[in-house]
């Protein structure tokens, strides 16, 4: 066991020395892998931030029932009674048209517009808070409410959320496909890098076989090389994404301020970042392992 660990430590140290002997080539390799990984990682980070923003903005879905301008309080009470036992309904509240106008006047950016209005153009409304995920039932309830007298408009606020959710899902699939393709690309790059390294160390491999080295002994330094390249490529990708977020956040802050928001693009949590690094290392390991398994067979002592 200690001999096994000792050889792993020696293989890792040897790999670092060998990579350090050709810093230019190593840096280019790592940079190529880093850029390739930064694309899906960056897209994933943007998507995660969009999901955070959507969740922040949306809260729970709502159903807004707007009455006609000539509707009376009993008309609104009829609507409240109709939704009281409706499917997916959490609670409802009546918003009189006077309060709606007062709220409009206090709303950022709309105050000036409200002030120019003569008579109050807003109707009474019943706002229904819904449980998340009850979409089909709510559609049915909305259809029933539209049939009630003095109901002008029934607006299901979750529709845009559904669309946003669908868009985010679409984005997620696109990022997964991109990540899959670039993962294959990264395995191919590592495969080829390790192949060239094997060719340059052909004599050493041949001698190692002659003096009794096992295949796993010969394989170990090359697999470490792939893993180290993958991990450092992952670190470069994280650096690129973090740097890009830092640059973008200046503009994001300016845009968010116009909505009265403190929103900023943020990196995923440390655990997720560690998983990304681990994934990059695993891809490097896989490329190297495949390459060594494929090419070591061809190098036999003569």
């Amino acid at each position, binding site marked *: 066991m*200690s*001999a*096994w660990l*000792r*050889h792993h430590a*020696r293989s890792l140290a040897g790999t670092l020395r060998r990579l350090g002997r050709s810093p230019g080539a190593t840096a280019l390799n790592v940079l190529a892998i880093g850029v390739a990984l930064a694309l899906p990682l960056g897209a994933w980070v943007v998507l995660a931030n969009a999901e955070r923003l959507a969740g922040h903005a949306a809260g729970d879905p709502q159903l807004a029932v707007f009455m006609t301008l000539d509707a009376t309080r009993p008309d609104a009470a009829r609507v409240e009674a109709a939704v009281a036992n409706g499917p997916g309904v959490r609670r409802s509240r009546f918003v009189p048209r006077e309060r709606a106008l007062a709220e409009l006047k206090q709303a950022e950016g709309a105050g000036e517009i409200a002030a120019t209005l003569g008579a109050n153009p807003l109707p009474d409304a019943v706002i229904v808070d819904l449980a998340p995920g009850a979409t089909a039932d709510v559609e049915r309830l909305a259809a029933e409410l539209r049939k009630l007298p003095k109901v002008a408009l029934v607006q299901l606020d979750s529709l845009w959320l559904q669309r946003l959710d669908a868009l985010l899902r679409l984005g997620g699939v696109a990022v997964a496909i991109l990540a899959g393709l670039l993962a294959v690309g990264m395995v191919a790059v590592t495969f080829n890098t390790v192949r060239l390294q094997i060719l340059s160390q052909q*004599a*050493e491999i*041949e*001698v*190692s*076989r*002659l*003096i*009794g*080295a*096992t*295949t796993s*002994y010969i394989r170990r330094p090359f697999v470490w090389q792939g893993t180290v390249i993958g991990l450092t490529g992952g670190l470069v990708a994280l650096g690129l994404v973090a740097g890009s977020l830092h640059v973008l956040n200046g503009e994001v802050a300016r845009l968010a301020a116009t909505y009265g928001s403190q929103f900023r693009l943020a990196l995923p949590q440390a655990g997720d970042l560690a998983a990304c690094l681990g994934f990059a290392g695993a891809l490097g390991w896989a490329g190297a392992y495949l390459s060594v398994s494929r090419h070591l067979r061809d190098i*036999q*002592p*003569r």
Partner: protein
Amino acid sequence: MALVSFNRVGKRYPDGYEALHDATFAVEAGEFAFLTGHSGAGKTTALKLIPAIERATSGAVLVNGQNVGALRDAALPFLRRSLGLVFQDQKLLHDRNVFENAMLPLQVCGEPPREAARRVRAALDKVGLAGREKALPVMLSGGEQQRLCIARAVVNRPGILLADEPTANLDSAAAAEVMEIFRAFNQVGVTVLVATHDAGLVERFGTRAVRLDHGRVLCG
């Protein structure tokens, strides 16, 4: 007791060339023996069959009673660790110094570094390379390179030392030195089998020689 024995061994290469035909001979434990014959007689092929660098196409090569031709690939490293191999072209790693070259077999076996370093220094001392540990192979003479190859072969304390034309590229003085080193190892119990085309060398040594001619054993 025979440490190495060839029982009616044949070796035909994929291109149809028959390097060995029905070869039978044995090398006893502790013996110093030569494999002799002209170029193309089958000496190198016979030596390569012992560590299973090549496999016999017929017959059996036994090392310590084990048929090496029947060994699985995964078992070959452990067979080779029990043998010391010396090559005509030395097969040294030119980007490693003398000490690191001699250290290789011990690293492969997972020997602890301190014990490995002690054994490497002892092996280099035995072949007269003490003090040259930091030199690269390219800085050594032909004789010194061959002695380094011997140090690498014996550092793992093998029971059998196999050498293929170890003196072919050396002048007579360097060749004599190398052969004296083989003799010294043989005197402490190591079985030595040397392949050479140099009949004079065999005569001077006066030990048993297995003579090959066109892949057949003429006398052994």
